[in-house]
């Protein structure tokens, strides 16, 4: 039959199923085909909480969401236009993520009384009116798949496992995705195992043809390619981008990368990714705990390597004392904090931005540390390179803040020109005949980095207060005051190297500035764009460095009658801004372990504007 084609600017699809149903893989493949087609996109996997729950229960549901469009995409989408639910549990868990009136595609075969009950439904949700507000398609995915792969001659159980490819095929048809990228990927993946390959290919094609041939689907949707800068692109998640950024920094500085870490959700991915690339001279150490990890990294930094340690909140707490040691020994060091939700163990798989103040003030005594935060998955790459440059140029530990959301979500990334990357000069100290002063300073207030093995620069450092210049132990009152201010001024001085904060304020007459940092960038851009669409004028700026602030920040925040600061915490940046500039910045705080939705922020901005 002939099908009509409907044009759409943007679509949000969510694939949901049991942990065993391969939804992440399905999402990845759909993402790839979509990227190839030239749409802009953003994705977010939504894993179940750490421990595997029994199959068929809501706790075992694994989902993957993607937003793609013919214009720029800044978030994975507040709500799904389409939900693919492989079983009742998936429906139960994710129904409220679907926009009212949205489309739901069910694997009918999975809606057995037993599964329905396992999912915690009393009645069959497909029969009791639960789905009245939605457009529902019932597709017996399992049985069709089994039939489609019969000829391959594998067990029914194995055949059934291909049903995610059926779903992928079906949705690929619905949104006119190219099939070749998926098929060639299957070739590469299962090249060895012919039967498995055939089964998956058969299932994929069956799904595609099912869409094309049955009456069930009246029309196909087309989403045009998005206009983007020319270049070579790839899809990248925050974890990869951050790991690769560290490797790039090692490459640009000639400093071997030494990554010591203790596994913790959601930072473990960095350890996993980096440990794959030992051919870059990367050394990865899984330490006995977070304290050991940061001490090992600091020891490596002392020898002239790029010492890095990565963790999440609980680990950041544990590293605090040693970061103080890094501050007073003034060695380059990078600590990556992939923020997760809640105090204590909290909600390890959920996202939050609540480690900003701890990163700023979480060490006894006066121990200032620079802080930089990534604003998107791909941005993690540049942030890593920048952090390394500052750490090396200023001989200081630097904190990189990322979060669960950035770590796991992905977006297309235009590969950088390698020689456009900043060079990083370790500028190791060398003996020049005169007495060596380990705590002498250059115009950046940075001290010499004299590494073991260097003749004539033997010296001792440590955690006791140092005498200005000589670096000897000193309990002298004025020296302590001087060193305290030197350490503070050194970090403050980094601002001189930072570009002024750019404000996005087209007509220059906005009376509210939305100021953000970190992973909320996409949400803020989306919300502001919508409001401008409604003819409201709203200004937007996003901080990359939280300490020090860019030099023009005071001027910027004072320029606007109203300042709104959206954060996934109780108002950390808002408090720093208020204290520093005495402006009555308002805080929009959402602390639910999930990203802020553009529409929530939109409402908040409107309220602030209208009151």
């Amino acid at each position: 039959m002939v099908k009509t084609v409907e044009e759409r600017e943007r679509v949000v699809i969510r694939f949901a199923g049991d942990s065993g149903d391969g939804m992440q893989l399905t999402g990845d493949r759909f993402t790839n085909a979509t990227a190839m087609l030239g749409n802009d996109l953003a994705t977010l996997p939504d894993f179940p909480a750490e421990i595997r729950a029994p199959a068929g229960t809501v706790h075992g549901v694994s989902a993957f969401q993607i937003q793609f469009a013919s214009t720029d995409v800044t978030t994975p989408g507040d709500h799904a236009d389409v939900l693919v639910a492989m079983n009742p549990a998936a429906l139960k868990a994710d129904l409220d993520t679907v926009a009212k009136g949205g489309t739901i595609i069910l694997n009918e075969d999975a809606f057995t009384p037993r599964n329905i009950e396992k999912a915690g439904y009393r009645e069959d949700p497909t029969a009791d009116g639960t789905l009245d507000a939605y457009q529902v398609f019932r597709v017996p995915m399992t049985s069709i798949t089994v039939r489609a792969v019969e000829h391959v001659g594998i067990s029914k159980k194995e055949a059934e496992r291909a049903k995610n490819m059926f779903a992928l095929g079906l949705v690929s048809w619905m949104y006119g995705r190219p099939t070749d990228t998926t098929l060639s990927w299957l070739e590469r993946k299962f090249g060895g195992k012919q039967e498995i390959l055939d089964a998956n290919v058969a299932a994929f094609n069956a799904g595609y043809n099912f869409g094309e041939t049955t009456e069930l689907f009246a029309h196909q949707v087309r989403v045009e390619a998005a206009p983007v800068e020319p270049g070579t692109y790839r899809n990248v998640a925050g974890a990869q981008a951050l790991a690769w950024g560290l490797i790039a920094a090692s490459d640009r500085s000639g400093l071997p990368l030494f990554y010591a870490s203790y596994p913790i959700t959601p930072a473990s991915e960095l350890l996993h990714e980096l440990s794959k690339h030992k051919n870059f001279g990367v050394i990865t150490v899984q330490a006995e705990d977070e304290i050991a990890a940061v001490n090992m990294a600091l020891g490596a930094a002392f020898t002239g390597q790029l010492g890095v340690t990565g963790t999440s909140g609980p680990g950041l707490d544990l590293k605090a004392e040693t970061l103080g040691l890094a501050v007073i020994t003034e060695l380059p060091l990078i600590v990556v904090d992939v923020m997760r939700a809640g105090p204590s163990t909290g909600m390890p798989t959920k996202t939050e931005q609540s480690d900003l103040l701890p990163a700023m003030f979480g060490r006894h005594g006066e121990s200032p540390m620079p802080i930089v935060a990534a604003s998107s998955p791909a941005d993690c790459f540049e942030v890593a390179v920048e952090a390394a440059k500052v750490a090396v140029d200023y001989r200081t530990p630097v904190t990189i803040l990322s979060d669960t959301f950035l770590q796991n979500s992905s977006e297309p990334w235009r590969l950088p020109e390698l020689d456009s990357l900043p060079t990083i000069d370790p500028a190791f100290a060398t003996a020049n005949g005169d007495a060596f002063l380990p705590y002498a300073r250059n115009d950046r207030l940075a001290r010499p980095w004299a590494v073991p093995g260097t003749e004539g620069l033997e010296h001792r450092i440590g955690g006791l207060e140092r005498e200005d210049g000589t670096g000897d132990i000193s309990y002298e009152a004025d020296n302590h005051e001087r060193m305290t201010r030197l350490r503070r001024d050194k970090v403050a001085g980094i601002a001189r190297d930072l570009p002024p904060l750019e404000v996005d304020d087209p007509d220059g007459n906005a009376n509210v500035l939305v100021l953000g940092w970190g992973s909320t960038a996409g949400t803020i851009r989306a919300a502001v764009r919508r409001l401008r669409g409604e003819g409201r004028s709203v200004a937007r700026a996003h901080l990359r460095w939280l300490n020090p602030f860019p030099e023009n920040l005071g001027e910027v925040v004072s320029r606007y009658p109203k300042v709104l600061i959206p954060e996934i915490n109780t108002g950390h940046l808002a408090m720093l801004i208020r204290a520093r500039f005495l402006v009555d910045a308002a805080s929009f705080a959402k602390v639910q372990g999930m990203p802020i939705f553009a529409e929530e922020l939109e409402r908040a901005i409107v309220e602030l504007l209208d009151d």
Partner: protein
Amino acid sequence: MTDLDGTIGTGDGAGADTPGGVATLTKKDFTSDQEPRWCPGCGDYAILAAVQGFMPELGIAPKDTVFVSGIGCSGRFTYYMDTYGFHGIHGRAPAIATGVATANPDLHVWVVTGDGDGLSIGGNHLIHALRRNVNIKILMFNNQIYGLTKGQYSPTSEEGKVTKSTPFGSVDRPFNPMGLALGAAATFVARTLDNDRQHLTEVLRQATRHPGAAFVEIYQNCNVFNDGAFDLLRDKSLGLHNQIRLVDGEPIVFDEGTRCVRVGENGRYEIATVADTDPASIVTHDVHGSPSLAFALAHLSEGPTGPTAIGIFREVDRPTYGEAVHAQVDRARERLGPPDLGTLLGGGDTWTV
């Protein structure tokens, strides 16, 4: 190789196993300009003198030597050595040193710690460094007290110890440092005394020859807060009867040849008088093989309250952590080819617009 009678010429020490060695080093080359600030009479002075006196024979330049220490009186050691030095925070020296030694295996890395720094707050890092066989030489100054904080009991203080923090006496059983190190799969475990320079020096010599983690407990007298804790061994005449000086390959006899360690009933090792012991059942010291002989010797006495073994308990070869880590980098280069940023970033699915 663990001949402890000191006949081994020092020339030998600075021999084959120290390539790139510097010919003419003196104690002065290892002495910094900082004047030591320990209490007059502290055992730490003797250890410092012994170490500074011994270093030159290794023929390793100060520039290639790194001392890492924790917090405690012992921790000040680093400032007095004219080498590279890192005075870390309390208990973390083994972790810092692991970073140093793993990052740059060409460096000769020493850790100086105390019974509190190393066994109380730093216990975990210590046992993991030993397990990993990181190439660091750990000198634990055991004075069975917290010196720097002015006299609280430590994890090696004897039960019932009356200190500032235990006016009614401590109630916890102390660690047996040799036993703990052996339990942590250490590859080199030894004990010596601050005031027996020859023995101390020979133990250091063997430790530096050992590839990997060496754990050396040094009984050190804190004359201010725990004076005389080790008199039974440090005192010349008492020591004569109570020191069980271990020599690899030799029968274990002590107390001027009158007493010995023998294989008792059900294979238990026990102390006996040579007179009424069948010579065949006298134990021959063996630093290799299973650690259980060393473990048994460590438990002949609990703390220096009776005949106590000193010298090298155990010494076995295992690849060092640093070697293994760098070997992996090399193998990765072979398997994955030389590093190329372009391939890393551009690998996988890309598309061009």
